[in-house]
């Protein structure tokens, strides 16, 4: 086991940090941005090569692993970037890369790498609480001629409002199917909304949407395996993103304790706060370590071990995020609860990250199941 960070990783992270420092001024982080601005920034991220990090070189990408992307995600989290890096560059790109035919890869991955296409994952369904098994899905395909019709509803589609296409999970006669559906398909209605942390989210309604056979990416066992893998990948990405956000929360709290005076001395001189700050830092460092473990597991480990380690990382990060968020607010006092203060925006980002692809309870159960499976 080796946690050394290579020079290449460091350089990539530094480049992203420069981008973030320029593009996301501290005082505007966490505020909603216009669709135009989101679109423009996505293009800038493509120029930096970020949108193609998961994409093969054949399709114009650089075929990096999660370990390489960890620093990218930490920086994006630290800057509260609302761009669809997770949904498009991590989740959708990796699914199409892993499952797509050469034709599908050409069709979808090349434009993703060039920043011309944003693709979101449509997985969750209303009323289903982290239920990811194909058989239970309400979204379903019915045969029609050579192709299919897709009907049903998908919820919590992160970055859905801006997406040009969706990777959709549905069932056909109880068998899981993964397919790509363009956002402008006839019969697809998109209801846009916002997340707690002012990002874009959508509910999709499919009403007999025509699906050609060559839109299918995978089915059955292969689809279930790919879905588990991409959820682990997304979870590792969420860990890295959360570590970035927590780093900033701890840093801002530490600075506040140094400068804020109460009862005639800096807050940082109060031992009770000192000890709690140390516990925040320990939680952050444990999260940083487990985020790296999750990234390495995604790149290296066979499935049961990968899922187990990623779940452990999500639990570690999720608990740390709760602790750090609460303490950062408490130590900032009422100021920490204002919209003007950055603290709240970071807290909300962490709250959303905790809930994507399974909250702490779900991850604990996943850890137990995958431990039993590995035994």
């Amino acid at each position, binding site marked *: 086991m080796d946690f050394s960070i290579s020079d290449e990783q460091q350089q990539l992270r530094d480049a992203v940090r420069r981008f973030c420092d320029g593009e996301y001024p501290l005082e505007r982080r966490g505020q909603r941005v216009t669709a135009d601005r989101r679109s423009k920034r996505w293009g800038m991220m493509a120029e930096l090569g970020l949108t193609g990090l998961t994409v093969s070189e054949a399709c114009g990408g650089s075929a990096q692993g999660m370990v390489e992307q960890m620093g990218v995600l930490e920086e994006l989290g630290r800057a509260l970037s609302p761009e669809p890096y997770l949904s498009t560059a991590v989740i959708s790109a990796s699914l199409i890369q892993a499952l797509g035919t050469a034709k599908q890869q050409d069709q979808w991955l090349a434009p993703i790498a060039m920043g011309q296409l944003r693709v979101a994952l449509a997985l*969750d369904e209303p009323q289903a*609480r*982290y239920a990811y098994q194909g058989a239970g899905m309400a979204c379903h395909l019915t045969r029609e001629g050579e192709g299919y019709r897709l009907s049903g509803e998908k919820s*919590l589609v992160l970055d859905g409002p801006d997406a040009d296409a969706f990777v959709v999970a549905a069932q056909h006669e109880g068998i899981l199917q993964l397919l790509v559906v363009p956002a402008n398909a006839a019969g697809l209605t998109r*209801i*846009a*909304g*916002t*997340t*707690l942390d002012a990002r874009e*989210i*959508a*509910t999709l309604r499919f009403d007999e949407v025509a699906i050609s056979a060559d839109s299918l990416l995978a089915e059955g066992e292969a689809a279930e395996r790919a879905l588990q893998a991409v959820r682990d990948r997304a979870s590792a990405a969420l860990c890295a993103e959360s570590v970035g956000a927590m780093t900033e929360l701890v840093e801002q709290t530490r600075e506040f304790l140094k400068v804020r*005076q*109460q*009862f*005639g001395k800096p807050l940082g001189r*109060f031992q*009770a*706060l000192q000890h709690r700050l140390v516990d925040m830092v320990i939680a952050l460092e444990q999260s940083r370590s487990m985020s790296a473990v999750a990234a390495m597991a995604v790149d290296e480990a066979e499935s049961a071990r990968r899922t187990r380690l990623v779940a452990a990382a999500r639990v570690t990060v999720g608990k740390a995020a*709760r602790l750090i968020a*609460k303490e950062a*607010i*408490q130590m900032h*006092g*009422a100021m*920490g*609860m*204002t*919209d*003007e*203060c950055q*603290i*709240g*925006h970071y*807290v*909300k980002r962490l*709250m*959303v990250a905790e*809930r*994507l692809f399974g*909250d*702490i*309870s779900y991850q*604990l159960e996943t850890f137990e199941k995958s431990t039993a499976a590995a035994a």
Partner: protein
Amino acid sequence: MRLEFTPEEEAFRQEVRAFVEAELDPAIKAKVERGLRLEKADYVAWYTKLYEKGWITPGWPEDHGGPGWTPIQKYLFDEETLLGGAPRIIASGINMLGPVLIAFGTPEQKEKYLPAIRRSESWWAQGFSEPGAGSDLASMRTTAVREGNHYIVNGHKIWTSYAHFCDKLFCLVKTDKDAKPQEGISFLLMDLGTPGIEVRPIKLYEGGNDLNEVFLDNVRVPVENLVGEENKGWTYAKYLLGHERTGIAGIGASKQQLLRVKRLLAEQGLAADLHIQRRVTELEIELLALEATGLRILGENQIFSAPGAEASMLKVRGTELRQAIFELLYEVAGPAAIPFSEEAMFLEGEDPLIGDDERASLAANYLDSRKLSIYGGTNEVQRNVTAQMLLRG
């Protein structure tokens, strides 16, 4: 000692319960039970019912319109109204200023202000905290300089709850700049319409705007608006802060939110989840213990480890418990707590993506609950105070 309430107390409890059931507007009740935003009109509607019944100021003496209840009756009233989904008494005139005026005000002040407070015609804002001072009230910098029959007030107050609902302000000001902290402070009453006063709402991270800043720029306050003696304001402020004793632990509110947890668990099909059930159990037991402690404080010949610090301890545990309940509610929400818009905080929310899904409000409720350990003297300050009582001598 007696486990049961007396038959008279039980009858009183039933009377309060029946009153709430009969008189509380169902729309207001729904907002309270679902943690949604209340308008001023909602509060006034309920307070007016209480006023008409003679129950609006349980903490005031009878000759000023209090109902003359025992401490147990006050406790039962708090519990039953909150459990029944009624709005809390947030009006500072009722909770804070009234008792101070009754104890220290002139006959003219009492006559002028108290009846309007009871009728909810007049709402008072509290001007204590200042930027940069936080819990350190004694280091305030707002000044009042005597000029003939007026004080000229300059300064900046912050974290003033519900000032946008209010027409009046009670305020701590420094009348002797050379005095030590906690001395040279006076307690002034003002009309918020006085020239030079500006109220600015503070937007909060969960979308709320209950808090405000109050800017005071050469505000002329008539000297008859001084409460008690000049430079003795700290005494009155301490009296005010120490006055509210029942209710500080928030038992009724915690019970009401625990009912909400159970309702949501049932609605979400999570009633059989042993892990979440165990957390409900642990919180229920903590609530029982807190309630027993709140009631024990009312009994005679009690032994306490830190006499005088009971209110601080109830505040600390009461707020931590309420926060834990709100955290559990937020967990019950699951992924449904991801989408949010401020519309979700209104009973007739119009957000098309969220619709009427109650769970979308739970993240905001959780964020809002973080204030409980900050306001009214942070829990750190409460622990400092308690430790001083434990370790002196």
